[in-house]
C-alpha cells in the first residue's frame, strides 16, 4: 500500500468513526426512544462550529477576513469537550417541539423546519459564524506540537476517532440496556400508555435529545478538526437524510445496526460512487443517481425489512425456558387464588415481600370518609358538547366499583379525567384527600392512581416480562443518572422487580410467554399482560377501561375473580364494562351514567329496578 492509499484509508476510518458516533446518537433518539429528530444535523453543526470557534484565534487573525464569535485559541481537547456540551445544550430548545403532545409526524416536520431555519439564519447573519463563507483555517488539534500532515498524526487521529466511537457505543449501550432504556422503548412503542404508567415523557425525550445531541456535537468537533473548515453547505438537510437512511438500513434501535449503517451508507455507499468515473453520463448524473438510490433504499427497506439489517435484539431476562412460538392460546387457565399461587412461586427463589399488594401509604381511610377517589362537579366540554356534566361520585376503598352506561354516556371520558389523560373543563378530582385535578397522568400514576386502556396498549416490541418490568415505580435504574451509573446501581431493584413479575406471571398463567413480544400475543393474553403490568405499579387505585372486552367469557370470569382478590387485599378498583353479567357477578357498587351525567348508583339489582336506568339503556 502506498502512503497515499494509507492516507485514504485513514481518512475513511476517521469518517467512519465520526459517522458511527453520529448514527449512535441518532439511533438512540429515533430507534430507541422514538423521537424522529429530522433536525439532527444541527447538533453536529453546532458541535463543529463550537470546536472551530474555540480553537480559532481571535477573528482579526489571518488578515481578518472572517467574522465570528469567541476565537479563544483553546488547546485540544477543550474544543471537543465544548463541542459535545454545546451539542447537548442546543437540544434543549428542541424539546419544545417534541415535548408537546404532537403527533410523531408533526413533530418530525417541525424539527425538519427548525434545521432549515437554523441553516438560513447562520448563512445570512454573517457576524455570528461568518455566514455562508463558513470558517476556515481552523487549527487542527495540537498542530503546534505535531505536524498534522504526518503519517503518525493521521494514525493517532484515526485511533482517537475510533476509540471515541467505541466509547460512544458503550455509553449508549449502557443507557439502552438499563431499565431506563426499557422505559424509553416503552415510550417509543406507546407513549400515551407509558405516560399513564408514570413515565415523564418530557424528561425522557429531553434526555435522549441531549445525549444524542452531545454525541452529534462531538462528532462535529472531530470532523472539523480533521477538515479544518466548516460551512453551511456541509450541513444541509441532505446530510440528515443520509444519517436516517443509515440508521434505518442498519437497524433502528439496535446499536450494532447503527454502526453497520454508518459504515454502509455515509462511508460505504458514498465512497463507492466515487469510483464511478464522473464522465459517465451528463455532469452530475452519477450524483443524482446516488440520491435516487438512497431514496429507493429507504423505501425498499421500510417495506421489506423495516427492522434493518441488524434488528433490535429480543431481551431475555434471566434464565428462562425457550420462548413459546404458539401465540394464539386464548384460553389460559389462571392459577387459583392468591395464597396458593404465592406458595408455588416461592419455590426455589428467595422472595422478598414482592406481592402485588397495594401501596402502603397510610391509607387515609379516616380522612375523606373512606373514599379513595372523589369527584366534585366534574365536567368536560368538547366544543359545545357536554361529554361529562356535573358528575360527583365517590369510590370507596376496597371496592370493585363498576361504571356502566350506553354508548356515548361519557364513561371513557370520565375515566380519562380521573386518570389525567384527558383534561378537565371544570370541577375537581380528589384522590386520597388531595386535589389532583391539575396533575398530569404520570404524576397521578406515581401516587398510585393508574389506568388501563380500552384499545390494545401493550408495548409491542417489548417482551411480556419487559412490559411488566417497565411499569415498576421508583426503580433506581429508571432515570438517566441511574442508567449511567450502571448495573451495580440498579441490580437490586431489578432483581426484586423480576421476582415480583414472575409471581404475577405465574398467577395469571403466562409464565411460558415471558419472552414473547407483546405484539405477538393473542387478544386475551394482551389483556392479562395489561392487567399484570398495571399491578406492577403497586397501585392503590386502579381505573380499568373495559378490561374484559374481546376476552373469552371463562377467562373474563377468572380475571374478575382475581380482581376481587385484589380488592380484598385493600386495593380499590373502578371498572368500566359493557358486560352486565360481569357487573352482576363482581361489582358492588355500580355507577350508571347516561348522556354525561350519573343516573344512579347501587348494586345491579337496585339499578335494574329503576325505570330511568332501563329507559336509558333502551333509548340511549
Amino acid at each position, binding site marked *: 500500500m502506498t502512503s497515499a492509499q494509507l492516507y485514504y484509508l485513514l481518512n475513511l476510518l476517521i469518517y467512519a468513526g465520526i459517522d458511527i458516533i453520529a448514527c449512535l446518537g441518532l439511533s438512540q433518539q429515533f430507534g430507541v426512544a422514538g423521537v*424522529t429528530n429530522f433536525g439532527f444535523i444541527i447538533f453536529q453543526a453546532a458541535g463543529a462550529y463550537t470546536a472551530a470557534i474555540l480553537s480559532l484565534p481571535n477573528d482579526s487573525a489571518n488578515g481578518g477576513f472572517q467574522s465570528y464569535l469567541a476565537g479563544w485559541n483553546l488547546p485540544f481537547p477543550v474544543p471537543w469537550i465544548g463541542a459535545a456540551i454545546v451539542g447537548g445544550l442546543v437540544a434543549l430548545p428542541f424539546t419544545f417541539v417534541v415535548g408537546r403532545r404532537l403527533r410523531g409526524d408533526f413533530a418530525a416536520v417541525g424539527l425538519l423546519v427548525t434545521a432549515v431555519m437554523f441553516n438560513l439564519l447562520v448563512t445570512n447573519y454573517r457576524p455570528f459564524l461568518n455566514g455562508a463563507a463558513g470558517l476556515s483555517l481552523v487549527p487542527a488539534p495540537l498542530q503546534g506540537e505535531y505536524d498534522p500532515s504526518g503519517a503518525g498524526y493521521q494514525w493517532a487521529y484515526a485511533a482517537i476517532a475510533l476509540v471515541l466511537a467505541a466509547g460512544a457505543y458503550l455509553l449508549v449501550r449502557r443507557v439502552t440496556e438499563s431499565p431506563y432504556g426499557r422505559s424509553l422503548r416503552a415510550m417509543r412503542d406507546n407513549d400515551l400508555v407509558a405516560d399513564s404508567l408514570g413515565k415523564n415523557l418530557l424528561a425522557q425525550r429531553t434526555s435522549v435529545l441531549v445525549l444524542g445531541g452531545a454525541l452529534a456535537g462531538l462528532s462535529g468537533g472531530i470532523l472539523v478538526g480533521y477538515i479544518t473548515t466548516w460551512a453551511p453547505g456541509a450541513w444541509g438537510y441532505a446530510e440528515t437524510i443520509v444519517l436516517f437512511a443509515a440508521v434505518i438500513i442498519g437497524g433502528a434501535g439496535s446499536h450494532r445496526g447503527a454502526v453497520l449503517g454508518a459504515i454502509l451508507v455515509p462511508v460505504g455507499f458514498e465512497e463507492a460512487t466515487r469510483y464511478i468515473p464522473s464522465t459517465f453520463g451528463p455532469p*452530475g448524473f452519477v450524483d443524482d443517481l446516488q440520491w435516487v438510490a438512497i431514496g429507493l433504499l429507504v423505501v425498499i427497506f421500510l417495506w421489506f425489512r423495516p427492522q434493518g439489517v441488524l434488528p433490535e435484539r429480543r431481551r431475555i431476562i434471566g434464565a428462562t425456558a425457550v420462548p413459546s412460538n404458539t401465540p394464539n392460546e386464548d384460553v389460559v387457565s389462571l392459577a387459583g387464588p392468591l395464597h396458593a399461587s404465592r406458595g408455588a412461586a416461592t419455590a426455589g427463589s428467595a422472595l422478598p415481600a414482592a406481592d402485588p399488594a397495594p401501596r402502603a401509604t397510610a391509607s387515609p381511610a379516616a380522612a375523606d370518609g373512606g373514599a379513595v377517589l372523589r369527584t366534585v362537579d366534574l365536567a368536560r366540554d368538547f366544543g359545545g358538547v357536554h361529554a361529562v356534566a356535573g358528575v360527583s361520585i365517590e369510590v370507596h376503598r376496597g371496592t370493585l366499583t363498576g361504571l356502566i352506561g350506553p354508548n356515548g354516556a361519557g364513561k371513557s371520558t370520565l375515566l380519562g379525567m380521573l386518570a389525567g389523560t384527558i383534561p378537565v373543563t371544570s370541577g375537581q378530582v380528589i384522590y386520597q384527600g388531595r386535589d389532583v385535578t391539575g396533575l398530569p397522568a404520570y404524576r397521578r400514576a406515581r401516587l398510585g392512581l393508574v389506568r388501563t386502556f380500552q384499545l390494545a396498549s401493550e408495548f409491542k416490541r417489548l417482551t411480556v416480562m419487559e412490559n411488566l418490568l417497565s411499569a415498576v415505580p421508583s426503580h433506581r435504574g429508571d432515570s438517566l443518572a441511574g442508567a449511567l451509573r450502571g448495573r451495580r446501581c440498579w441490580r437490586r431493584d431489578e432483581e426484586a422487580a423480576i421476582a415480583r413479575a414472575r409471581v404475577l406471571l405465574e398467577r395469571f398463567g403466562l409464565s411460558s410467554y415471558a419472552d414473547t413480544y407483546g405484539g405477538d400475543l393473542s387478544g386475551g393474553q394482551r389483556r392479562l399482560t395489561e392487567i399484570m403490568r398495571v399491578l406492577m405499579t403497586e397501585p392503590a387505585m386502579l381505573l380499568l377501561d373495559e378490561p374484559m372486552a374481546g376476552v373469552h367469557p371463562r377467562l373474563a370470569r377468572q380475571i374478575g375473580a382475581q380482581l376481587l382478590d385484589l380488592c380484598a387485599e385493600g386495593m380499590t378498583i373502578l371498572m368500566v364494562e359493557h358486560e352486565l353479567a360481569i357487573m352482576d357477578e363482581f361489582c358492588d357498587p355500580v355507577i350508571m351514567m347516561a348522556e354525561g351525567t350519573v343516573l344512579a348508583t347501587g348494586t345491579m339489582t337496585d339499578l335494574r329496578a329503576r325505570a330511568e336506568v332501563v329507559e336509558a339503556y333502551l333509548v340511549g
Partner: protein
Amino acid sequence: MSLFLASFGFGLVTAAVLAIAAVGFTMQFAVTDVLNLAFGAVMIASAFVAYALNQAGVNVWIGLLAAAAAGAAGSVLLNQGIYTPFQRRGSAPITMVIVSLGMTLIIEFGLQAIVGGTNVSYTMSQGPTVRAGGLVLTAVQFVIIGLAIVVMAAVHGLLRYTKLGKAMRATSANRSLARNCGIRTGRIVTVTWAITGALCGIAGTVFAINNGSFGATSADLFLVVILAAVFLGGPGSAYGAMLGAVIIGLATEISAAYITPSYKDVIAFAILLIMMVLRPGGLLGAAVS
C-alpha cells in the same frame, strides 16, 4: 407607503401560488392522513412537463393544463402505489413521512438526472407591468392571482355544494363511519388525489412561471413554506390552508420590505414552529391542549 403597497402586491402573488399548493396538500392529508412531503417534487416535475411542451412550441398556459393532468396522474400513482400499501400494513404516521421523503429523493433526483442541473425558463412574455396605486405587478402576476381565486372558488364550491365534496368531507372526518354510510371511500380517496394532484401540477407551473427560472430542486424550500401555510391554518382544513397561505404570503413579503429580506423565509418557518407548539390544530382547528 408605496413600499408597503408594493410588497403587499408581491405578497398577494406569493399567497396565490401558495394557496393553490397548500389547499392541495392539506386535502391530501385530510383524506388519507399522510403528510405527503413529496408534494414539492410532484409540483416541479409537472412544471417540467409544461416546460417540455413549451420547448416544443406550445403556449405555457396550455402547458399548464398538461401539467395539471401530469400532476393528477402522478399523485394518484404515488398514493395507490406507495402510500396505500404502507398504510394497509398499519405503518405509523412517522413511517409514512420517511417514505414520502424517500419518494421526494427519487422523484426530484430522477428528474434532475433527466433534465440536468442547469436552470431553465419558460419562453413566455410577462406582459406589461401594471402600476395600480402603489402596486407594481405584471399582467401575468395578475393572471396568477386570478387563477388562484378561481381555484379557491372551485374548491369551495366542490366541498360545499357537490355530492363528491360532501363525500370527501365525510371521508376525511371519519373514514370508517363514512364507509358504513355507504360512501365508496376507496374511490373518493382516488378522486381526491386526482383533484389535488391537478392542483399540485397547476401550483408547480405557476410557481415556475413566477420564479422566472427554475430547476429540479427549486421546490425544496417552497415545500417548507407550504407546510407553514398548512399548519397555520390547521392541517386538513382547506379553508385553513387558504387563510394560512394569505397570511404567510403577506407576512413574508411585508416583513422582507421592512426588516431584511434575507430572513423572509425564516419568518414563515418561525410562524410554523410557533403554531405547532402552541396550537397544533391551527387557526381554524380545535385548540388541542
